[in-house]
């Protein structure tokens, strides 16, 4: 398989890059001064693209790579891939579900605790020497607080399971009600936000879920409410989020994803009631290796004409 051309869209995983280099003819897209040049020179050599949440395979790329047979995304989110076009051109698409579910759910609870119990803020307080000047303020109890989840897929369910261990009542919004859970279903995000204190975004990004957490939703959540976004930046209207936080209409936010990563609105840096993370939802050694292995497994399966491990299209 060493002659098969595989293109990696951006640096994402040193182990994955290494293995791709070993097993295939690897093209590093970012090594080229322009995509035009790259496509001109290599478009007929690329049979597979490995992308992630930063860069996948959009219409332009798909059209520029006529020999592409498979897009293997090192992510569970597919919003950076033109799925319709792939379907149309019979290009296979795989992602990395399940292996990152736990890490993302763990981080969600970590963010909730960091916001409610002001862990990051009080760490700053101690490091600055302020503790000598007096006790830190009271924080907010997590156990028993109501958690509302947008999207009850694998990640949403894993978040619910963890929050239940803290005796949190769970409610959710989803396109359709899911049978087999004891969680309260709300048919709209506004109703969900009006009836919970901690709102977790755990759904896929699509045209329907773009800005699903908007000003209305944030106002419904209210000055004691907290938004936790571990989905995609565009789930939340970021401009509205900033003003809601600055004006105190929203109590706090734990955000791992942003509309224009790696750029984060600077107004957020001045706020104490936010925790800002650089898209680390799946960011552990264990999980990134598992994701890489899944990407490699899918590619090998494809080129050996075996069934794909985690096909989407």
């Amino acid at each position, binding site marked *: 398989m060493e002659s098969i051309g595989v293109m990696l869209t951006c640096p994402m995983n040193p182990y994955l890059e290494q293995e791709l280099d070993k097993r295939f003819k690897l093209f590093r897209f970012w090594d080229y001064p322009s995509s035009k040049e790259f496509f001109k020179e290599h478009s007929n050599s690329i049979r597979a693209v490995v992308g992630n949440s930063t860069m996948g395979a959009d219409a332009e790329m798909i059209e520029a790579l006529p020999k592409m047979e498979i897009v293997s995304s090192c992510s569970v989110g597919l919003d950076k891939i033109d799925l319709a076009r792939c379907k149309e051109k019979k290009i296979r698409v795989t992602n990395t579900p399940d292996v990152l579910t736990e890490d993302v759910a763990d981080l969600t609870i970590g963010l909730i605790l960091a916001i409610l119990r002001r862990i990051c803020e009080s760490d700053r307080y101690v490091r600055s020497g302020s503790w000598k000047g007096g006790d830190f303020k009271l924080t*907010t109890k997590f156990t028993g607080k109501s958690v509302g989840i947008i999207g009850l897929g694998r990640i949403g369910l894993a978040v619910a399971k963890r929050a239940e261990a803290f005796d949190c009542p769970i409610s959710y919004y989803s396109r359709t009600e899911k049978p087999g859970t004891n969680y309260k279903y709300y048919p709209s995000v506004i109703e969900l936000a009006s009836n919970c204190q901690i709102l977790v975004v755990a759904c896929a990004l699509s045209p329907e879920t773009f800005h699903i957490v908007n000003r209305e939703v944030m106002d419904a959540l209210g000055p004691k409410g907290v938004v936790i976004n571990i989905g995609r930046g565009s789930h939340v209207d970021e401009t509205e989020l900033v003003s809601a936080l600055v004006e105190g209409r929203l109590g706090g936010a734990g955000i791992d994803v942003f509309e224009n990563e790696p750029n984060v609105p600077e107004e957020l840096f001045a706020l104490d009631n936010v925790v800002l993370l650089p898209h*680390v939802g799946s960011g552990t050694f264990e999980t990134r290796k598992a994701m890489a292995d899944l990407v490699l497994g899918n590619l090998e399966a494809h080129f050996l004409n075996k069934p794909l491990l985690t096909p989407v299209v």
Partner: protein
Amino acid sequence: MAEDHLPQVLVLRPPKCFTAYETQFSEKFHFLKAWESPLPTTDFLATHAASVEAILCNSFTPITADILHHLPSLKLIVTTSVGHDHINLPECRRRGISIADAGHVFSEDCADLAVGLLIDVLRKISAADRFVRAGLWPISGDYPLGSKLGGKRVGIVGLGSIGLGVAKRLEAFGCIISYNSRKEKANLPYRFYSNACELGANSDALVICCALNDETHHMINKEVMKALGKEGVIVNVGRGAIIDEKELVQCLVEGEIGGAGLDVFENEPDLPEELFTLDNVVLSPHLAVATPESLSGLFHLMMGNLEAYFSNKPLLSPLLDE
């Protein structure tokens, strides 16, 4: 009721709970407020507290043999803490003085914070938040990877109500729980180790939830930390002195252990300054129980204990002799 008909309760220094709920407390009790007097404590006690039967204190007010000596009528100590290391227990035992503490009022908040600190250290939440706030994400690119919680062996030191709360929560994250305690507890699905070193050797993280007493003082020492190993993480929501702090700092600085989440320290609010330079520690100013819910629960419990004593009923949260 006129103030002088109300039962007297002595307060040397006001616990947060007293300050927050003074009006409500004062409806039922007359408080002797030693801290408001210009007299030195022992003089105040000699002058005003000879017939006092009850004292309300927090964990920062040591109830020493000397204090006890100046309270000949004392029958009850109500402390707003779960810890008792600030009270001269042998002297109380000798005098037949009962002690009521915070019972389980804090257990949930404390367990929550222990879990929050563990996730923070393993997933580098506070450190990554600092990274983003410093504007480094566009410059430095991807943040270094953290470590997965699932499958981690977590050793809980002290399996009281706080330790059990930590265990229950961490099980939902796929952690494998084991513990060390004075005695093995029946009917639990967790593996018991009879000493902290063995627990450390078989754990990826230690969560300290036990009381501070003579046996547990500096129980987490260099040996235990070496047994835990270079990737190991320690979370402490008990008392600072359960860990040999000097050794901890040295181990952290030299990379002998992987990280720490600390809510308590040997000499609060003074901390070894080396800790401030480390990215793999999370520092919390002893606020495991600092929520309005805990404070309210505490008020009701303290009030309940005082009312019970003065109406000859059983205390709600007595410290039982073991």
